[in-house]
């Protein structure tokens, strides 16, 4: 049994004329009747009615015309591709070599393949609607070109409203917003195939559609990163929707241009449907017919990253925002966890009292290990993170509950520490306490970093255990315990400075966590800037005393660095003065120094020393000196 047909009609255009003679002399003994397309157009019935096999060579328009006739007259079809028709070669697995292409085109074992009609025009490769950044490219596009084009399109992107209807086994209607949509007869061998599962074929009775909808500049950059790094993943990336259905109808509020295989194909709406097994075609060996990963006829609706529901009014017809936003449905688990964190409960109250007790004892003992234990016990971090989310999304419920929970915790901590101090006959002033009485901008920086880390860990379940470390870094309870000790000692300075440290940490975490959640894309669909503005105002208010305190630290550092070892000639005596330590307590600046001398110093010598220090160094210093005589 021969593998090739006995006779065939060769339809060619001007571009394929050169092949007419060659194919006639084919080595398979097939009787070829070469006919120019112009002749067929004049008398198609005469040539095609009894024709069994046709080989076509010409531009895509000619090929599509012949395909239409193939459907109508039921003849099988072979292709001789022009060298420039790489898409055709790729799609149907055609050989580039002429002899091999002729051999394939004349075979007598064609397969029935699906045909996609878009607005009654044959869709050979792809149809596009709207702007399709990053995805609508030739298959082999350089990364630099991709990057440049991607950045160029960044400034012209808008999300436009679309209604997508599919009918098949599952009928669905979807209202969304997107930059544009790409429809494929078969997405394999297209650039878009990098983003979607490779489970399409010419025989599955389905057409594919990729919807490009980056809802923020951040997600656009993420998509760009994925495309540029060329990471193949089974999951469809954010910003991309993917639909497979036998029938897709696409509508837009605006009459958008539709391009079918690069040619203008009218305006939206566009209606595309698959005609299964419509044509018998001689295709190449590497053509995917029945993909193993997907059963034939398996429809798909991957649309979770497309703006839907409440997000839609925010998204459509607007310039793309910088940060991603989301409806609550997208992150259900996180919001459930945060709402739980915002709820006051007995465990929280007990832990708060216990951690404060531990911190108060640790502070009195000057034991950093006990204080760290208190930090680990402290449950304040969770409601603060919930508060941050409440502020970002202006979720009044979450906001109220978390604020109430924090307030209760703070009140309990202050009361516990104050009562313990009042009841204790021993009220020392330890280094651990003193360390919490001089908050500076550096503490604010620590709080901000911890806030970022807190929000980040909360956003990803797999790193949630890091939250303990974050709590240690910020140490919310020890400053509160110190402030409570201040109340117990009836010392306003003590209380106010320690409480300022707590406020620093609190405001720093809230602001940083709010911004982090925003960057990570947790903003509400309807954004409210009031919450963030209030936090910023608090931040400014807290920053002023902190900045002043920081200036004090830098002054102290500069003073002590500048001092190192100084010499004074006092009443004929030579003093070496070292180990200067400048301590600011309220408005007083106390300079403690060590004096090395070989001669005994009198009261007059010390007075002269003090005069010289005051004359040559800034500020009104109270001087305390430790004397060491050099033998």
């Amino acid at each position: 049994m021969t593998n090739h047909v006995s006779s065939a009609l060769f339809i060619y255009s001007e571009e394929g004329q050169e092949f007419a003679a060659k194919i006639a002399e084919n080595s398979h003994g097939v009787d070829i009747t070469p006919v120019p397309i112009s002749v067929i157009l004049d008398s198609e019935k005469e040539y095609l009615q009894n024709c069994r096999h046709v080989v076509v060579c010409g531009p895509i328009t000619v090929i599509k015309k012949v395909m239409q006739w193939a459907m109508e007259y039921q003849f099988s079809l072979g292709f001789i591709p022009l060298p420039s028709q790489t898409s055709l070669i790729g799609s149907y697995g055609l050989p580039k070599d002429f002899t091999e292409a002729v051999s394939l085109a004349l075979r007598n074992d064609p397969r029935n393949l699906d045909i996609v009609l878009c607005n009654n025009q044959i869709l050979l490769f792809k149809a596009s609607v709207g702007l399709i950044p990053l995805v609508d490219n030739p298959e082999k596009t350089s990364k630099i070109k991709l990057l440049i084009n991607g950045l160029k399109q960044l400034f012209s992107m808008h999300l436009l409203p679309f209604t997508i209807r599919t009918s098949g086994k599952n009928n669905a209607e979807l209202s969304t917003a997107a930059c544009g949509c790409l429809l494929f007869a078969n997405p394999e061998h297209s650039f878009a195939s990098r983003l979607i599962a490779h489970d399409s074929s010419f025989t599955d009775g389905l057409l594919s559609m990729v919807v490009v909808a980056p809802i923020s500049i951040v997600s656009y950059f993420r998509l760009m990163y994925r495309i540029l790094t060329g990471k193949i993943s089974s999951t469809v990336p954010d910003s991309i929707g993917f639909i497979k259905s036998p029938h897709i109808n696409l509508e837009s509020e605006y009459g958008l241009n539709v391009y079918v295989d690069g040619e203008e194909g009218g305006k939206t709406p566009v209606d595309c449907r698959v005609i299964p097994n419509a044509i018998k075609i001689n295709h190449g060996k590497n053509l995917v017919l029945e993909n193993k990963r997907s059963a034939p006829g398996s429809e798909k609706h991957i649309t979770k990253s497309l703006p839907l529901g409440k997000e839609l009014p925010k998204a459509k017809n607007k310039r793309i925002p910088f940060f991603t936003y989301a409806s609550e449905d997208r992150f259900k688990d996180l919001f459930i966890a945060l709402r739980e964190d915002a709820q006051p409960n007995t465990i929280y109250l007990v832990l708060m009292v216990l951690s404060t007790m531990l911190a108060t004892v640790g502070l009195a003992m000057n034991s950093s290990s006990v204080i760290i234990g208190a930090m680990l016990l402290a449950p304040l971090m969770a409601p603060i993170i919930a508060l941050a989310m409440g502020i970002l999304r202006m979720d009044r419920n979450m906001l109220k509950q978390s604020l109430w929970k924090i307030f209760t915790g703070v009140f309990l901590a202050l009361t516990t520490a104050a009562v313990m101090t009042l009841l204790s006959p021993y009220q020392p002033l330890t280094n651990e306490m003193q360390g919490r009485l001089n908050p500076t901008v550096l503490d604010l920086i620590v709080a901000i970093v911890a806030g970022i880390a807190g929000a980040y860990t909360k956003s990803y379940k797999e790193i949630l255990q890091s939250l303990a470390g974050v709590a240690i870094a910020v140490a919310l309870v020890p400053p509160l315990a110190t402030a409570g000790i201040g109340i117990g000692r009836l010392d306003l300075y003590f209380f106010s400075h320690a409480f300022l440290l707590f406020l620093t940490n609190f405001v720093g975490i809230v602001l940083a966590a709010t911004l982090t959640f925003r960057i990570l894309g947790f903003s509400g669909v309807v954004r409210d800037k009031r919450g963030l503005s209030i936090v910023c105002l608090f931040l400014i208010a807290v920053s002023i005393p902190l900045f002043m305190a920081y200036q004090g630290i830098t002054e102290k550092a500069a003073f002590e660095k500048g001092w190192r070892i100084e010499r004074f000639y006092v009443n004929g005596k030579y003093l070496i003065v070292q180990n200067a330590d400048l301590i600011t307590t309220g408005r007083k600046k106390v300079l403690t120094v060590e004096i090395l001398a070989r001669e005994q110093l009198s009261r007059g010598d010390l007075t002269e020393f003090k005069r010289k220090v005051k004359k040559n160094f800034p500020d009104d210093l109270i001087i305390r000196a430790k004397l060491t005589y050099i033998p």
Partner: protein
Amino acid sequence: MKTYSLLFIIFIASVSVLATGCEKAKREAVTGDSVKIGVIGPMSGSDEEWGQSCLEGIKTALKLQPTLDNGSLIKIIVEDDQNQSILAQKALLKLVEDDDVSSIIIMSSSEVVLALAELAKRLKTPIFAVTSTHPDITENNSYISQLLFDDHFQASVASLYVRDELLAERVGVVIDKTNTHSEYLARQFISKFASTGGTCIEISANNGDEELLASLEFLQVQKINFLYVPLEAEHVVTIAQLLHQTDYHPVMIGSDGLQAMMLLQYQEELYLVNGMLATDPYSSTISPTDYGERMQRLFQKSFSTPGTVLAAQGAEGTSIMLSAINRCPEQSDRSCINQMLRSTRDFVGFLGKISIDENGKAERPIFINTVDNSKLRSVVKVY
């Protein structure tokens, strides 16, 4: 919103106008009057560089402040004394009697200034000695004041530094008995060192090179590791050369102005004194004050010569003198200028505060510098 913006612009504009007005009000217009200040110093002869360098400092200070607060121009009249007492006396008489100067800045050595004491008393003209450090300059004289610390202070500090910080037990002291400045420093050093239980061995710098060499060899045998050399640069170079010959390397400590003169006159011999210490009112490794920075910039813009401590002294002396004149209601009132000069408090100079007490003595920090590859590096600062 527009109303707020408009109000804001009006506010900013008003503040700017007021600020400009205030700024203008501060500046006095030049009145055409002038105040004359006499300058005496070695403008020729062997110490010409000394005088010229100091005068450059004076000119720099006048560039920074060319008029008094009342708008009067400041005119300087320079007289050359070649660092000689007789010439200095003649110059002083001329400046006071013929030129009618309100005050005098003198850049000469201690010996020359000491010789002017009686004349200064008679002429009742404030004289500001900007380079001389002998303590007797201000003794029993109510019209001569000093910009620098005196020799008593500098010799005592040098002595105690060697004794208390370098922990020396014995020191060799080289004395130039023909130089009052050197003699005084040496005596004070020895006295202070002895009072703390140390021992000094004196040698003379005036008996010729051979005897000096023999004395140095004696010190070497005695294992003396420190040499106090309160001498002129010429003598120090000679000693350094002799030490080089004998392969004897004690730590040498000189006095004020020595390192500046070495840098000015003995560039090629600097390698001989590498590591040598000296007391000085300045140090190039200490960050200057705002005044110091402005003066340095102005100096570099105005002169191609390197800035020396002598130039700094000239500049500081002039600025302090102008400040004193400015505080007098009548700016040619010599008595008032003298009084104001002697009540200078915490004037911020090149590297710190300078005060001049009612006896005309300056209180300012002293530096002990070392010559480190042709540069002065501060070792200690003593308040």
